[in-house]
Structure formats: C-alpha cells, structure tokens
C-alpha cells in the first residue's frame, strides 16, 4: 500500500512543517529537561497513532518527525546535535530451536527460551549510533540490539552466543529488528524526520517511540510517543472469535464449508 503510506507521510510532513515555525503545540508528552544542561529540548510525534491491520495489509511506513527547540545550531550540516529514535513493539516470550541431523534427517534439536523479546525493535539515528554516545550511555538507555538481554543471560557461553545471534538474524531478515544509521535526517536547522517500515508480520499491541537528543555524547532531551497496532475489520473479528470462542469459530468454518459445498453442487449439477 504505497499510496496510503505516501499520503500519510506527506500529510504528516506538511502538518509538521506548518506547525513548527508557529511555535508548535507539543503533541506528545512534555520533554524532560535534564538539570544542569543546556536549554535544548526535543519534541516529536508519529504520523500514525493507530495502525489497523486489515485484509489488504502488506506493511506500512510510519514517519517520526520532530524539532529541536532553542537549537543553537546555525546550519543544518553543523553536526552539533544527534538524534536517535528507538521504536519498540510489545515484548513476548519465544522459543528458538536449532535443527540437528539425526539418522540422516534434519530434526528440531536443542531449544532455548527467551523470556522477553520485543516483537519489533528499530534504532534510527543521524549517524552510526555507536559513534554518537559511549557504550555505557547506550546500554543504560537500551539503544542497540547488542545491548538487549531478551530476558536470558547469554554472556560468555559460545553456544548461547550463537543462539542469540541466530535469533537476532532471523528477526532482522523479517525486518522485525532494524538498525538504520542513516534513518534520521535533519531538514533545516531544527526540524528532523525519520521513516520506519513496519513489515507485514508486525505483532499487534502497543509500540513506544523514544526520541533522544544528544549533544556531545550526552542526552540533553527526550521525547516519547506511542502507537497502537491492532487488527481491524473482518481480520479482528475472526482473530478474536478464534481465541475467545474457538468452538464457535470452528463451527463457523464448518458451516461456511458446507454452504460453499452445497452452492457448488447446486450451481454445477447436471441432473
């Protein structure tokens, strides 16, 4: 659905551009300013607060946009500020299995359980985020895939490490884990934008969007927003029925099949 995404993007950007010079109403929670640092504050919002997964859903691109207030940067390319945005989907426990060869065939062998793996996780930054701040700062904020613990202690042990990197790789292949070093772009002196593509298999639930403003390797301001991914229309109806009233759902499946079968026989019968 390129069209929808494009339109959303455009409207959001226009909205942002028209609001910002006027002083801007903070659409999202008020930015927290760290005491003892400079005056800069960051404000941000997301193009879509609610994403409805319907039968035509093939993924969606969302736009995160914002501005730096009281910026003392004179030109866009000055590089005084860095922005890192982290998008997190709802966490859930998962099992990771590895196939092994047993008697000539490949079967699921050892498994490891991870207690808390975000269903979606993306880090977007103005430049490689490892260069923006120290490892300790990034770890404290939970920025970067290598700093997530996934609810399992995996330090040291090489087998744990290979499982962990396989899990991250699988999620990256499905675009459920992303790190984009060039994901946030400044437009002009204080306005910035970032796009993130949610793939077709995004889990439903509440997503948080954190936007951090860095200056000289330290966070000077943070802004937080959220968005909700839900199933809608017939998708939502069927999903809820399947899990809340599974017997009725099964019965519905049988009835539809019987009716379709009768209709087919009736339409094509020759006697």
């Amino acid at each position, binding site marked *: 659905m390129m069209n929808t995404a494009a339109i959303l993007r455009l409207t959001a950007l226009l909205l942002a551009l028209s609001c910002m010079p006027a002083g801007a109403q903070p659409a999202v929670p008020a930015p927290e300013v760290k005491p003892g640092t400079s005056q800069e504050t960051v404000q941000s919002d997301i193009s879509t607060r609610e994403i409805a*997964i*319907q*039968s*035509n*859903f*093939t993924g969606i691109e969302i736009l995160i946009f914002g501005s730096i207030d009281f910026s003392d940067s004179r030109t866009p390319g000055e590089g005084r500020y860095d922005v890192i945005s982290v998008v997190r989907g709802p966490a*859930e*426990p*998962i*099992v*990771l*299995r*590895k*196939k092994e*060869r047993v008697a*000539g*065939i*490949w*079967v*699921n062998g050892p*498994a490891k*359980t991870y207690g808390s793996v975000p269903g979606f996780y993306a880090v977007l930054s103005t430049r490689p985020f490892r260069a923006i701040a120290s490892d300790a700062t990034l770890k404290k904020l939970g920025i970067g895939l290598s700093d997530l613990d996934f609810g399992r202690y995996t330090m040291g042990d090489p087998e744990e490490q290979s*499982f962990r990197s*396989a*899990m991250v*790789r*699988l*999620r990256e292949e499905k675009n459920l884990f992303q790190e984009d070093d060039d994901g946030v772009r400044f437009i002009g002196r204080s306005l910035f934008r970032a796009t993130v593509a949610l793939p*077709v*298999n995004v889990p439903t639930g509440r997503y948080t969007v954190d936007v951090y403003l860095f200056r000289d390797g330290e966070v000077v301001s943070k802004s937080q927003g959220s968005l909700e991914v839900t*199933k809608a229309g*017939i*998708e*939502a109806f*069927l*999903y809820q029925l*399947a*899990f809340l009233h*599974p*017997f009725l*759902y*099964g*019965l*519905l*499946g*049988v009835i*539809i*099949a*019987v009716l*379709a*079968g*009768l*209709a*087919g*026989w009736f339409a*094509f*019968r020759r*006697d």
Partner: protein
Amino acid sequence: MFQIYLPIAEISVNLVVMLGLGAAVGFLSGMFGVGGGFLLTPLLMLSGIPPAIAVATGANQIVGTSVSGTMAQWRRGNVDLQMGAVLIAGGVVGALVGVFLLKILREAGQAGLMISLTYVFFLGSIGALMLWESVNAIRRQRAGKSMSARKASQHNWIHGLPFKMRFPRSRLYISAIPPLVIGFLVGLLASFLGVGGGFIMVPAMIYLLRMPTNVVVGTSIFQIIFVTAIVTLLHATLNHTLDIMLAFLLIIGGVIGGQFGVRAGQKLRGEQLRALLALMVLGVAIRILLDLVIRPSELYSIVPLAGS
C-alpha cells in the same frame, strides 16, 4: 497485487495464488475422484503456511469439497448410511487421538517433522503401489489380454468376528469391529495429516469389507464430511490453528476446480488416470523427503512460547 492478510497464520498471501491452488487441487480431486487433501496440505506447507495451520485448514477445505461430492453420490443412492455411521463412530475417536497427538508434538517442536514423515510414508507406499498396479494394467492391455477378474473369496477372517451388524445397502452381514477400526485409522490420519483419508478407506472397503464398488465411493465421501468437520472443530478449539480466511479461498477454488476436474476425468482412461495420479503422489512424497534430508539453509527457527 491482490495480497490478502491471513488473521491466524499472520502472513500475507496472494489471493490469486491461493484461489488457484484450491482450484488446481480441486480439479485433480474431481478428475481422480479423490479428496485431494494429501496434495493440498503439503502444498500449503511448501508455500509457507505453518504445518499445523495447513493441516487444520486443509481439513476444513475437504468438508466443502466432500459435501459437493456426497450430494452427487446421494442422488444416485450410493451412500450406505449404516456403514457410514459405524465408520464415523470410529472416526470421531481417531480424530480425538490425532488432535491430541498433534498438540503434544507441537509443544515439543516436532509437529512439522512427524507430519512430514507420515506423509512420506503414506504417499510413498501408496504412490508406489498404485504406479505398479496401473503400469501392469496398461501393459496387460497393450498385450491384448483382458483385465483379469479378481476371484473374490466369499469368506475371510473378518467373518469370524463378533458384534455382527446388518448393512442392507451394501448387502453385508459382518462384524462392526472392522469398520470401526478402519474409521478410527481414517480419523487419526485426517486429524494428523489434514486429509480425508479416502486413499486408505476405499481400498479397505473393497478388499477387507468387500462392499459393492458402487457404494464404496459414496459412503467414503459421506463419512469424510463428518470426520473432517470434527477434525476442523477440534483443531480450532484445542490448537487454534484453523484459518477460516485461507480455508474460504481454498474452498471457492476447490469447488469450482472440482467440477471441471470431473468432466476432464471422464475423457481419460482409468489406468492412465491412476498412473498419472501415482506419479503425482510419488512426486509430493519425494519433495517432502528431500526437505527432510537436504541440509536446510536455515537451521534455527522461532516459535512463540506455547501457552502464552
């Protein structure tokens, strides 16, 4: 283009591909007079639908196609209701056992493997037997000999079993145990493999129960409606693996494809038809076997924690 999101499988599939898959399998099942589940379920798995969802949804699709088939047979009086009822009784128990078995295997992460292995075994052996039989028949015909009439012995060990019942439509007076056992096995296969089980039931009815050939197909397809309906209900209730959206697309394709298949089948000769079907069955078996034997490109897989 025409992508459609499946609410339970949680993937987006191509509408035209799934309708086409249903129609192609329906065409073949109409042509060969088989349920087609043994082709549909593996094809769904090969096209990326999780195995357990392919099984439950395949069973639901067979409900639709077997209703169409039964209506045609019913009007010709080819359904033995008594025999059907006994087979269904066995089938319900078999289906329950199969669904629980699949649930346990799914939690152990071995569902896909066991489904694949069972498919390889059944498709491989039945495909090989059918090919052998049909090639011999074609060869005999080329040699100009007439089809050898099988001399059916009037009595076999089945007639010594207790709990005898009368089956007027089949003109039989036999023990209820063999049809119950056959029904049980078919129910087990239906819930475990997402198939109707006709490929086991039809030979068993002819060779073991010695039912008249004209009522065999009608009764088998009649029984399949009920067993696959129960399998669908059980999978939906216990495993949450039924995707109605996917089943609907497959049924639409299947019902239409099936009607054209019946017409196409009448133009082909029996032995050739069986040889063709045998080759197809063997092809699917080999494909599944290769997937098990060849080193997979991805050794790791992620599943949500069961019960969460």
